C-alpha cells in the first residue's frame, strides 16, 4: 500500500468514526415505537409529526432562531468592525489582540457559561433572552473576525484611494467599494455565528429563560428527564440545517478567497 492510499484510508476511517455516531440518530428518529432504539423492520415519521405538533418544541425552535439571528447580526457588526481595526495594527500588539479575540475558542465553554452567569446575575441579565444573545454574540466574535480579516487582507487598498480621488468620502467608500468586495467573508462569518448560537447548549443552560428554553436546552432536558424519541427527530432537523448552513458558509469563504 502506498503512503498516499494509507493516508486516505486513515482519513476516511477517522471521518466515519466522527460522523457515524451522529448518523445513528437518523434511524432512531424513524423508529415507530416509543423507545430510543433502532428498528430495522419498519419505520414512521411520527416523531417528526410530534415535533411540529407540540408547541413546546416549536416555541423552543422559535426562541433558538430569534436568539441566533440577533446574536449573529450583533457578532457580524462587531466582528467586522474589529477586523477593520485589527487591519491597522501591526507587530507585537497585533498578536496580543489576535490572541485575545480568540479566547472564547480556547476557554472551556462551561467556564464562560459560569463566568457570564455570575456577571449577568449582578446586571440582571441572567435568564433573559437579551443576555443569551449578548453572550452568544461575544463568543461568536472570532468566528466573524477570522473570515472578514482574511477577506480584508486580500482587499486592494488602492481601491480606497481611487474612490476618494473620485469624490467618495469614508462612508461611501465603505458601503460602495469595500463592503461589496469583502461581502462573501462577512456573510460566511454571519453564518458561522448563526450556527454557533443555534447549536450552543452549555451557556444556554445557564443563561436562557426557564420559560423560554432554546431548542438545544429542551433537547438536553428531554434526554435527561424522559424517553421521548421526538428528541431524535429534533436532532435530525438540527443536524440537517446546521450542515446546510456550514456548507454554505464554507463555500462563501472559499469564494471570498478566490475573488480577492
Amino acid at each position, binding site marked *: 500500500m502506498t503512503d498516499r492510499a494509507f493516508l486516505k484510508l486513515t482519513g476516511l476511517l477517522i471521518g466515519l468514526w466522527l460522523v457515524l455516531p451522529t448518523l445513528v440518530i437518523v434511524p432512531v428518529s424513524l423508529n415507530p415505537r416509543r423507545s430510543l432504539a433502532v428498528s430495522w423492520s419498519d419505520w414512521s415519521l411520527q416523531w417528526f409529526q410530534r415535533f411540529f405538533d407540540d408547541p413546546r418544541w416549536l416555541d423552543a425552535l422559535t426562541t433558538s432562531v430569534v436568539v441566533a439571528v440577533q446574536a449573529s447580526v450583533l457578532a457580524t457588526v462587531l466582528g467586522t468592525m474589529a477586523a477593520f481595526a485589527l487591519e491597522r495594527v501591526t507587530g507585537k500588539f497585533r498578536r496580543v489582540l489576535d490572541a485575545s479575540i480568540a479566547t472564547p475558542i480556547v476557554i472551556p465553554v462551561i467556564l464562560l457559561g459560569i463566568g457570564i452567569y455570575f456577571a449577568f446575575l449582578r446586571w440582571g441579565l441572567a435568564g433573559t433572552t437579551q443576555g443569551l444573545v449578548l453572550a452568544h454574540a461575544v463568543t461568536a466574535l472570532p468566528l466573524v473576525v477570522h473570515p472578514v480579516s482574511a477577506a480584508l487582507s486580500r482587499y*486592494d487598498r488602492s481601491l480606497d484611494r*481611487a474612490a*476618494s*480621488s*473620485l*469624490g467618495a468620502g469614508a462612508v461611501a467608500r465603505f458601503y*460602495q467599494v469595500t463592503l461589496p*468586495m469583502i461581502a462573501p467573508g462577512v456573510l460566511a462569518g454571519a453564518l458561522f455565528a448563526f450556527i454557533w448560537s443555534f447549536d450552543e447548549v452549555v451557556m444556554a443552560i445557564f443563561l436562557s429563560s426557564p420559560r423560554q428554553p432554546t431548542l438545544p436546552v429542551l433537547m438536553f432536558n428531554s434526554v435527561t428527564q424522559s424517553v421521548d424519541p421526538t428528541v431524535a427527530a429534533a436532532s435530525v432537523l438540527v443536524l440537517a440545517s446546521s450542515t446546510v448552513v456550514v456548507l454554505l458558509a464554507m463555500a462563501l469563504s472559499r469564494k471570498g478567497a478566490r475573488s480577492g
Partner: protein
Amino acid sequence: MADQTSLKSRTRWRTATRPQTSHGGVELRLTGLTRSFGSAIAVDNVDLTVKPGEFMTLLGPSGSGKTTTLNMIAGFLAPDSGRIMFDGRDVSSLPANRRNIGMVFQNYALFPTMSVRDNVGYPLRQRRVKASQRRSQVDAALEMVELGHLWDRRPAELSGGQQQRVALARAIVHRPPLLLMDEPLGALDRRLRDSLQSEIAAIHRHVGSTVIYVTHDQDEALCLSDRIAVFRDGRIEQLSSPSDMYEQPETSFVASFLGDSNILVGTFTRDGNLRLPDGTEVRCGPADAGRGDAAVAGPATVVVRPERMRLTELEATPRSGTNCLVGVVIEERYLGATRMVALDVGGDRRIVVRENSGAGQTRPIGSRLRVCWEPADGVWIDRGADRHGESS
C-alpha cells in the same frame, strides 16, 4: 545630420499654436513642498507652478519623489511643510475626496464588483448627478476611449489596455480641473503605450484639464508634455519644455537621463574653448557664448547628442571650424532606422555616434574613423559641477 526624431518615430501631436483650452484647467502651485519618511527626505522643498490646462510631466529615476509629490497633490499624503494651491486656494488640509480631481493609477484600480458603466459613472454618482444625465455622460466618456460597446463587462473581463482606457474614462467623466496620472502606461506593452499616448493627448485637448503626469519613460515625457520637471533626489533638477530639455540640458544628469549624450569633461580655457585631458581643444556653443567672457579657467563640461556627430574616413579633410576627434570603433549596434557606433577616442573616453543606417556601409570594429561635430551642437553645462554641488 541625423534626424533626432528618427529613432523616436513618434510625433508630438500638439502644434505650438494649439488653442489654449484653459476653460477646464486649474492653476496648480506648489510652494516649499517637503515630505520625509523617517530620516529619508522623499520630496525636498519643491516649488512648481503649473498653468491652467498645461500638461506637466514629472520625470525622474526610481525613488526620486515623483509619486510622493503626486500623492500630496491628490491629498493621499500630508506634506511635512509647504503649500498646495489650486487657483490660489490652499487645499493642503482638504481630504482627497474634496479636491475635485481625477486620477489614473498604474494598476488601473477599477472597482472589480462594478460594471464598466458603473465604474465610469462613479465620480458622477458621488456628485449626485441624475441617473439619466449620468448615463449620457458615461457613454460619451466611454466613446472617447472607444469602449462604448463594452459597457456591461466587469473589469476582470477586459484586457490591460482596455482596463486602463476605462480608468481614463472614469478619471475624466466629471471633467476634473486637475487630472493626475501615475505611470498610467507602465504596465502596458510598447504598442498599447503608443496608442494610449495619443488617446491621452486627445483627451487632454478635449477636456482641457491641467494634467500632472508621472513617468520615468523619457519618450512619453517628450511627446506628451508642455513642460517637463526632471526630478532627482526629491528636488526639481530642471524645468523646461521638451525641446529645451533635450537641446539645452542644464546639468549632465538631465543630459544623460533624457536621451543619449556624450559628456565631454575638460577645462574651460580663456578663449572660450573646452580643453580635453589629452590637450585637444574643442569649440562649443554659439560663437559669442557669453559664458566665457568673465570666467577664469576651470573644470567644465560639454554635452553633444550622438545624432549631431558624424563619422568620416581619416583621409577626408574636415571642414575648418568643426570639432574633430579620431577614434577606434569598439561597438556597433544596429537599431533599424539608425545605428549606434561607439568609438574609443583615447584616454578611456568613449564617444557614441548615431547615424542613419540607410548610409550603406557598416562600421567594422577596430576601424579608425574621424568623428566631427559643429561647435553649435555642443551645449555647455555649468562649469564645475551640477547645481547640487555633486558630480554625477
